[in-house]
């Protein structure tokens, strides 16, 4: 019996059958334990702490490749069996669910109560709410609703000592205690395992539209997007995608019917020759576009470039030029309202070293414009000397101190997040 067999036996004694899974395509499979309750989660973490094992917490695994591959992991702890709706009070506009609940199921549950779930993330069937919160993944609807961290009212998180701890609550307004949920949101599971999330919900729209128009070049597309953003309309999302021979702009409008109709008229006056789809068609088109625009379906390395909105018209052409100079081909999408660009590195950077060099060079170029460049889905060899999240953040030492205080032994496979956190 190997030591791996022994470990799997001990994990199985807590959570039942153990499978094996790869945290990334380019690493060996590891034991995967999927606790069925918060108590089992605590027990697994206590086992790891006592035996000096290292855990990699995972939701549905869709964003593990945003991080560096951890040096050593003993087992994966998946929240996929934690799917309970703990509390749903539609008339209060709040919901509390276990972390493993899929985004698609969660959105459907919210809709049944007359609410819209933000973030409206791409490929919701492949994401759990715990994973979305742990990665701080916002949707294209961020333009209207803001980032996901603004809507997490509270969390229950299992820390390295094996205890499930609460922060925040289930109320739309609450300042009791330190907001540790803000710390856990976007920490990629390096501080603990999020097992429960409380969210603020928004009204399900009465009416929904998707308005698209074509543009011949990027400058023209950016100009049209600027005009749309200067309207009083509260646009939900606004994207620009490169399509054959030009660019397509797409705006999502939703809300009360008369408001949406008024916004439609404003937008049509701004975007000549626009086409419109409505209702359920609009929603499914937006869902499909969200996956494309966020490049969530890409098998290749991708870049997420973010800057201040006023710099976008400088940054976007610089990125375009850098890609052309490096002969990198792939999809290219912008979210002008939130000043984010997603770039796919489909070809032109097959060598890891070349990819790393390109990213470093792009970061240096864009730093002058206060833009950041994150690299996702990169092969591990490209990340030997490159931090996928960006250059050194201010406050990194303080972040390390927080991590040391919460997880002194590095139980949660530390070292895979920004700056080696």
């Amino acid at each position, binding site marked *: 019996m190997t030591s791996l067999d022994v470990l799997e036996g001990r994990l199985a004694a807590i959570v039942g059958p153990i499978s094996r899974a790869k945290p990334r395509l380019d690493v060996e499979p590891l034991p995967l334990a999927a606790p069925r309750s918060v108590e089992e989660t605590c027990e697994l973490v206590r086992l790891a702490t006592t035996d000096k094992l290292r855990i990699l917490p995972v939701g549905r695994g869709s964003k593990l490749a945003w991080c560096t591959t951890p040096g050593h992991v003993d087992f994966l702890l998946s929240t996929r069996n934690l799917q309970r709706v703990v509390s749903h*009070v539609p008339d209060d506009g709040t919901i509390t669910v276990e972390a493993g609940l899929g985004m698609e199921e969660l959105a459907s549950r919210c809709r049944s109560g007359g609410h819209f779930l933000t973030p409206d993330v791409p490929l919701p069937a492949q994401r759990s709410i715990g994973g979305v919160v742990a990665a*701080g993944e916002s949707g294209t609807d961020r333009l209207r609703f803001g980032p996901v961290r*603004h809507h997490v009212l509270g969390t229950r998180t299992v820390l390295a000592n094996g205890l499930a701890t609460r922060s925040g609550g289930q*109320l739309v307004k609450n300042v009791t*205690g330190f907001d540790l949920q803000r710390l856990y949101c976007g920490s990629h599971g390096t501080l603990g395992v999020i097992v429960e999330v409380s969210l603020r919900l928004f009204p399900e729209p009465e009416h929904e539209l998707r308005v698209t128009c074509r543009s011949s070049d990027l400058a023209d597309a950016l100009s049209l997007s600027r005009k749309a953003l200067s309207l009083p309309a509260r646009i939900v999302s606004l994207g620009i995608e490169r399509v054959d021979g030009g660019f397509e702009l797409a705006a999502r409008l939703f809300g009360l019917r008369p408001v949406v109709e008024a*916004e439609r008229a404003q937008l049509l006056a701004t975007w000549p020759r626009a086409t419109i789809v409505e209702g359920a068609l609009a929603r499914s088109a937006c869902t499909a576009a969200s996956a494309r625009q966020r490049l969530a379906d890409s098998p290749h390395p991708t870049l997420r470039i973010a800057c201040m909105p006023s710099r976008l018209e400088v940054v976007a052409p610089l990125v375009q030029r850098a890609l052309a100079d490096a002969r990198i081909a792939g999809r290219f999408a912008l979210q002008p309202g939130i000043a984010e660009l997603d770039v796919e590195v489909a070809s032109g950077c097959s060598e890891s070293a070349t990819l790393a060099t390109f990213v470093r060079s792009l970061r240096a170029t864009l730093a002058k414009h206060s833009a950041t460049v994150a690299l996702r889905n990169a092969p591990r060899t490209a990340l030997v000397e490159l931090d996928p999240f960006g250059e050194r*953040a201010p406050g990194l030492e303080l972040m390390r101190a927080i991590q040391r205080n*919460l997880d002194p032994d590095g139980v949660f496979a530390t070292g895979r997040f*920004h700056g080696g956190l």
Partner: protein
Amino acid sequence: MKRELIDELRGVLGAAGVIHEPARLLAYECDGLALLRQRPAAVILPRTTDECARAMRILHREKIPVVGRGAGTGLSGGATPVEGGVLVGFARMRDVLEVNVADQYARVQAGVVNVDLTLAVEKHGLFYAPDPSSQAACTIGGNVGENSGGPHCFKHGATTRHILGLVIVRDDGSVLDLSLPQADPLGYDLVGLFVGSEGMFGLATEITVRLVPTPAVTETLLAIFTDLDAACDAVSDAIAARLEPSALEILDRLTIQAVEASVFAAGYPREAEAVLLVEAEGSEVEVEATLAPLRAIAQRRGAIDIRRARSATERKKLWAGRKGAFGAMGRIAPDLYVADVVVPRTKLRELVAESTRIAREKRLKLANVFHAGDGNLHPNISYDRRDADEVKRVLEASDEIMKVVVAAGGSLTGEHGVGLEKQEFMSLVFGDDDMRAMCRVRNAWDPQGRLNPGKLIPVHACREMRGTERPR
């Protein structure tokens, strides 16, 4: 405080930047929670981040506890000094450092008064959304410390949603510059974590805030009720109908009478048992689409009249009454205890009634004025602090209100913070393990526990806090 230390601090801050004379220190003995008082050893008033950092290095060397203070309008004792400690005031840091119209943000010093920020940016068609009732006095730095709210946070969210960056002076006088606004934090969200930390993580000296475009249309309605329960039910119905006005505020009869007898008189009908102040903003179509169903709900719940502000002046007057309500209550008794709890919005009527019952049983005068849309109640108890028995009953009533609220799924505070006032009640909401996690995070920011010691977390809850060094 030792003379040499005063002189050393004066060397950094100038003569006007250090207050140590006992008579002048009287003004800093308490914040808005006047029940709790402690004279600080000294008050320092830096003018810049650099001055603040240099002074903090001296205080760190001397192991002196430090309490930050904005305008002292806080109502939970968050800025109550500690014995032997130094109070850091931001009254001389009142500059708006940058207004970026294109990217809709401003960078300000911590002592900028909330309303002054909006006045500084309104010519650009922008405003700063969080609007505590004390906005004419409270500071942005204080708002960051407490994660302050206000009536319009119903739509726009509390302070935390509006803070893009911070410059923080740490316990040891080092400066942490997190001021570059970014869509998402790189690494852990230190800015989000810091907001609402009640001065226990560091001193925010410069703040980058998000600005919001001024809406094309703003409409204000006043719905008049002969029954407080009905007004509460109207709000619960509006939430259940998924309506999104920008503010939903309730004032009860005693509050109305106090306001109408004061300089804040807004034209609220004195005979009403409650008024519901509603505001909607956006395009003309959006405002009408929001207010029409709200009017119907109010009527269905028995509103006897619904008035619409016909001009900006009338609208301002209605709001001046709401925001001046706490001040107006000075007419009822010399002192006011402003409670601050949050309840699920489905239970507004029930918990407002419970608060009223508790006050009645304690023979206290209770007036309700609250952010109904957020479920954030302010049961305000008028009292005379010279009457020891009445003070005792006020505290007992406050304790009982907090207990019934928490038992009903509510929380201790929606915008005023825990401070000293609610510290011992934290265990109603959080377990020891939850609070130990908070202490560990606090310990990373301030290992010696010198920043605003003895606040928020009950001392028995965690070893990290007990390890705090005593002041000299």
